[in-house]
C-alpha cells in the first residue's frame, strides 16, 4: 500500500531530516512512528501525503509514485485518498463546524444537497453533529479535534495520517481518540500516527511501531 524506498530528505542549509529510509506499510495497518520532536516523524507523514518531495528516493502510495507526481496531480490524489489530522487541528475559526468539515470539497462546487449529506454523515460518525452550525472558535479542544478528524474523513480516504494527535488533549479525550482509531481500523483504513505519546505504544490495535532518531530508522 505504502512504500518508501531509499528516501532521504535534506532541507535548506543542509539540514538532514531523513537519511536512507526504507519502509513498507500494508492496507488496513495502524502504524505508529515513534520518536522525539525533530526526529523526522512529521517529515515521513509529509512525504506520504505528497506535501513535500524527497531529495533522494521514491514514495509510492497505492501504486502511485506520489513523489514524482506534479503538484496538481499530487493535490488531487491527496484530496481523494489521504486524510490528515494536524497537531493543532488547523481549522478555520470563523467558519462553522460543517463548513470546516466540508472545506476539502469546496473547490469541487458540488450541489448543496450532496455537500449537506456528506457533512451530516461524517459529523454523525464522529458524534459532533449537534454542533454543526457552531463556529469552530467556540468549541472545546476535544470537539475541535473531532472536527479535524471529521474533515480528514470527509472523502472516506484509504489512508489517514495523524501528526501528534493527542499532544493537546487530556487523558480522557486521548482515550476517546483511540476509540475513533479503533473504529477506523475496523473499516480497513490504513492509519499512520506520528507521536511520542506512550499511550500508543502498548495498544492492541497497533500493528507496527517504527522507531526514528535523527532521521534514521532504529
Amino acid at each position: 500500500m505504502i512504500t518508501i524506498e531509499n528516501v532521504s530528505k535534506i532541507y535548506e542549509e543542509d539540514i538532514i531530516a531523513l537519511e536512507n529510509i526504507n519502509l513498507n506499510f500494508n492496507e488496513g495497518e495502524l502504524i505508529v512512528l515513534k520518536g522525539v520532536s525533530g526526529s523526522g516523524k512529521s517529515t515521513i507523514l509529509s512525504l506520504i501525503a505528497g506535501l513535500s518531495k524527497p531529495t533522494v528516493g521514491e514514495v509510492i502510495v497505492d501504486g502511485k509514485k506520489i513523489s514524482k507526481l506534479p503538484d496538481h496531480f499530487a493535490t488531487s490524489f491527496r484530496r481523494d485518498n489521504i486524510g490528515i489530522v494536524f497537531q493543532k487541528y488547523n481549522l478555520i475559526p470563523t467558519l462553522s463546524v460543517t463548513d470546516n468539515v466540508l472545506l476539502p470539497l469546496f473547490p469541487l462546487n458540488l450541489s448543496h444537497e450532496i455537500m449537506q449529506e456528506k457533512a451530516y454523515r461524517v459529523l454523525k460518525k464522529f458524534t459532533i453533529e449537534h454542533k454543526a452550525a457552531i463556529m469552530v472558535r467556540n468549541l472545546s479542544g476535544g470537539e475541535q479535534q473531532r472536527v479535524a478528524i471529521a474533515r480528514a474523513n470527509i472523502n472516506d480516504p484509504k489512508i489517514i495520517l495523524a501528526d501528534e494527535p493527542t499532544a493537546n488533549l487530556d487523558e480522557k479525550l486521548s482515550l476517546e481518540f483511540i476509540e475513533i482509531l479503533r473504529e477506523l481500523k475496523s473499516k480497513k483504513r490504513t492509519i499512520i500516527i506520528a507521536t511520542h505519546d506512550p499511550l500508543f505504544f502498548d495498544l492492541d490495535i497497533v500493528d507496527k511501531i517504527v522507531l526514528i532518531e535523527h532521521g534514521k530508522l532504529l
Partner: protein
Amino acid sequence: MTKINFYLLEYAYAYIIRNKIKNIFIITVFTLLVALLSTVFFITTTVEHEMKGRIEYKPDIIVEAYKAGVRSSVDEKLLEKLLEIHGISSGNLRLEGVYDFRAKNVRFYLYGVAPFEEVSDPFIKNILKNEELNSSNMLVSKDVKELMKQAYYDKYFNFIKPDGSFKKLYIKNYFNIKKRKEFQNLILLDQDALREIFGYKENQGSYIALSVANKNELDFIASKIRLMLPNVKVISKNDLNVSYEKLFNYDSGVFLSLFIISIFTFFIIIYDKANGLSSEEKREIGILKAIGWRVEDVLHAKFYEAALISFFSFTIGFLLAFIYVFILKAPLLGEIFMHQNLLDIHTFNLNIYLELSYSLLIFLLSVPVYIAATLIPSWRVATLDADEVMR
C-alpha cells in the same frame, strides 16, 4: 462560462471577516482614494463639459465699449462702423445686463429680446417659442419667481431705474431651467423694458455681437477691430476658449496634484501587499493545499477575496464621489472652480455628467491592480511545497 463557486466565495468572505482590522483599513483607504479620484474626474469633466457648452452659443466676436476705463453702453453707430469691416457677415446690438437685487443679495441676469430677432441659444429660443413679450411683462426662472415672492413680489416686480423711479414688470410666466443651471437667475424681457431699467437710449445696447463668415479669420478680424478702435474691448470666441482653458488648466493643476498623491498612496499599499504574505496567511495556504486544494483553487478563493474588497470599495468610493459632487455640489473642493470668470458668466454648476472613459480608467487603475497584488504573492506561496509553507 465558469459557474460561481459559492463555497469559495463564502470562504473568501470568512477570510475577510477573520482579518477584520486589516481589511477595514484597506477598504477605508481604497474607498477614500477611489472617492477622491472620482471626485477629481467628476468635477473636471463636468466643468469642462459645461464650459464647452457655454462657449458654443456665444457670438463669434463681442465688442464692449469703455469710457475712461469704465464699461459703458454701446452705440448703434459703432455697429454700423463695424459692419463695414470686410469679413463680418452680420451683427446686432445686444441688450443684456446684471441687475443687483439688494433686498435678497442676488443678481438677476436680464436678457432683452426683440420680436423677429434670432436667438442663438436653443434653451432661450425654446422658452420664447410660444411667448410674446411687451414692455410691461417678463418671463422669469422658477428660482427668480421664488425669490421675488419672498420679497412679496408675487405678480410683478419693481426694478429701480437709474433716476430712482420704478419700472414695474408683470410676471407673465415662469420656466424651469432643467440642466441649464447658469440660467438660474435669468429674466427674459422686452428690449425696450431693459433699456429703461439700465437707462439706455433708443440706439444703445450693452454690447455688440458680431458674426464672422470665415471662422479661421476670427482672430485676424478681432485684432483689426482692436487696431481700429482702441477704446473698445474685443473678445473673440477663441479668446473665450483660451480664457476658459487657462482657468480650467490652472484649477486642473490643483486637482492633478491631488490625483498624483492619491495614486502614489494607492501604489504604496499595493507595493506593500504584493511584497508578501504574513506567516499566518502562508500557513493557511499550506493547510488548504494539505487538505486537497490545488494552486488554482487557492487562487480562485483569493480572487474572490480581492474582488469582494475591491468591488465593494470601488462602488462605495464611486457613490460617495457622486453624492459629494452632484448632490452636495462639492463643498470645499468645488470652490476651486466656483469663481466668477472674466466674462461675467454665472458661476459653474455641477450638473450630472459622467464620462465613462474616466470612470473606467479609475476602475482599471484600482480593481485589477488590487486583485493582481493579492493573487501574485498567493500564487508564489501556493506553488511551494505545502510542507515548506506550513513549517
